[in-house]
């Protein structure tokens, strides 16, 4: 009992100070604003709440927001994996440049990306004009939404898979080969399972990021209700109509889904750590 009371000596002091700062910081930036959303929503009755969040236009926007985000994150999981593979496994001139380009979607204002994509993919844009005769329309359709969401989610999978792939020593693959595994077996049974947790984490992060995206989508989607309207835009629309409670009700739905996703990511990370100890 007494031993527990003896303060543990740490090399670096300041636990109280840093912990207090962290709590304040998180409260001011995250917890208080989010609590405000819930508070504002409570001004609605349950009936009004469900009427708002389950309106056909709202449902259509969830479908687009979450559906397009899922497709974009899947595309990123696949192609991001390939980019990470190339960056880790091969040496070629300009590798550093490609490595830097991967981070560009982090840095670029997403509205700029949205405008650039729209200009390229409208029916008379540089790329859009070649797709139009084939009957493929990108700008002002869900395909366009998926396109920009893929763009903004690109770095996540690359940056989560890359370090893990870097850590895999060549002797692991040699061991598999000596034991008689073919290349495809080495990939599917050894490499992929080792990379899987990182890949899923990257996917979940890209997905969460895409769900919250606003700036780029509003330019390329055309914002047609029931067709190409994402939930964040619907929230803005409600705000512009001074329907604050309705806007926060939609925000609560998004918040809960985002929270569920973060929980999933953390569970995955915990699961990964447990396996490696």
């Amino acid at each position, binding site marked *: 009992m007494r031993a527990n009371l003896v303060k543990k000596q740490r090399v670096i002091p300041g636990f109280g100070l840093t912990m207090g700062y962290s709590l304040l910081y998180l409260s001011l930036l995250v917890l208080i604003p989010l609590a405000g959303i819930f508070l504002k929503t409570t001004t609605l009755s349950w009936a009004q709440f469900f009427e708002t969040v389950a309106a056909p236009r709202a449902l259509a926007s969830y479908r687009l927001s979450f559906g397009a985000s899922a497709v974009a994150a899947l595309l990123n999981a696949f192609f991001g994996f390939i980019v990470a593979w190339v960056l880790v496994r091969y040496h070629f001139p300009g590798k550093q440049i490609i490595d830097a380009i991967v981070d560009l979607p982090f840095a670029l204002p997403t509205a700029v990306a949205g405008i650039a994509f729209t200009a390229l993919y409208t029916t008379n844009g540089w790329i859009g004009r070649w797709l139009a005769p084939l009957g493929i329309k990108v700008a002002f359709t869900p395909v366009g939404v998926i396109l920009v969401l893929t763009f903004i989610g690109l770095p996540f999978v690359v940056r989560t898979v890359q370090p893990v792939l870097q850590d895999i020593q060549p002797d692991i693959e040699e061991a598999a*080969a*000596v*034991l008689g595994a073919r290349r495809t077996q080495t990939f599917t049974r050894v490499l992929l*399972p080792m990379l899987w947790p990182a890949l899923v984490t990257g996917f979940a992060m890209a997905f969460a990021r895409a769900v919250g995206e606003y700036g780029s989508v509003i330019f390329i989607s055309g914002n047609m209700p029931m067709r190409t309207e994402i939930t964040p835009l619907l929230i803005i629309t409600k705000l512009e109509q001074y329907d604050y409670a309705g806007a926060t009700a939609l925000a609560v739905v998004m918040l809960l889904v985002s929270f569920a996703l973060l929980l999933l990511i953390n569970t995955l990370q915990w699961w990964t750590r447990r396996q490696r100890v």
Partner: protein
Amino acid sequence: MRIEVQNMTKRFGAFTALNNISLQVQTGELLALLGPSGCGKTTLLRILAGLEFSDAGSIRFDGEDATGQNVRARRVGFVFQHYALFRHMTVFENIAFGLRVRPRSQRPARVEITEKVTNLLRLVKLQELAQRYPAQLSGGQRQRVALARALAVEPRVLLLDEPFGALDAKVRQELRRWLRRLHEEIHITTIFVTHDQEEALEVADRLVIMNSGEIEQIGTPEQVYHHPANAFVFHFLGDVNLFRCRTENGYPLIIGHVTPEQPGEAEENVAEKAFVRPHLFNISTQAHGVNEIKGKVVHINPAGPTVKIEIMSEWGEIVHAHISQEQYAELQLCPGAQVFLQPKQMQIFPD
């Protein structure tokens, strides 16, 4: 399986890792490739496994040409220095891997795999740890898993790359005795690479001593230790004192006045190297007048089975001498004392 290596050469850019090496390994033999780092021993092992390919020369497995055969076709077992276990698989799955990846027609049934893995777990004494992940094992346990995994595919030859290199001294010693016993039990042709002469001398049936891409000597531990082919081998297999010497009137002389009992075989007045093992000195505090090195005690380390003494010779070289605890008690040496060293045995090699 019998292995023949003929005239093998391997270069990495300008660096010659193996220079025209020829070697035969007998069926069931436990062979050590011994040498300092960078001598080419690991490269040779990797070429035998098919993880690397030589620039010239050939390999025969039981008389059959295997030079260009790929790693899967060779059916060798390879244990990596850092184990290379699959960290996302349990111990059981690691060992079963080689059986599970076989083409369907050659793959044993599920029950057979379980039985085989269980037997191997028993062989490496890890039955209780079958469901653990590699991260939950100690270094010695991981090494045994790696060995069991290599044995699971019933290899024709077992190749081990510095198998005990990453382990601490105590575990190392236990494991190498265990490997020796295991080899007596299963009698598979085994080649292991090491830079630790003690390990090689203790475990191997025969040693191949390598230096900068070439073989210096091949022989049993007894042969290479007591009849070293050259200065390098003598120097590499244990502690030595090196003296410059030249032969005069048929006797090799160190700095003009110390000679061994026997006349030398070397030519007159040619620079030579004389080696004396530290435990092959007569040490006394009184001068005898002949064949001795005069010096002062600099440092004494009495811990261990022998007492290790550093002596500064009269011409300013440090000489190491090992004496028994009894003799140490008798002589009552302390740093600064004057002593006289008589070499009991000297090995002379051309410089």
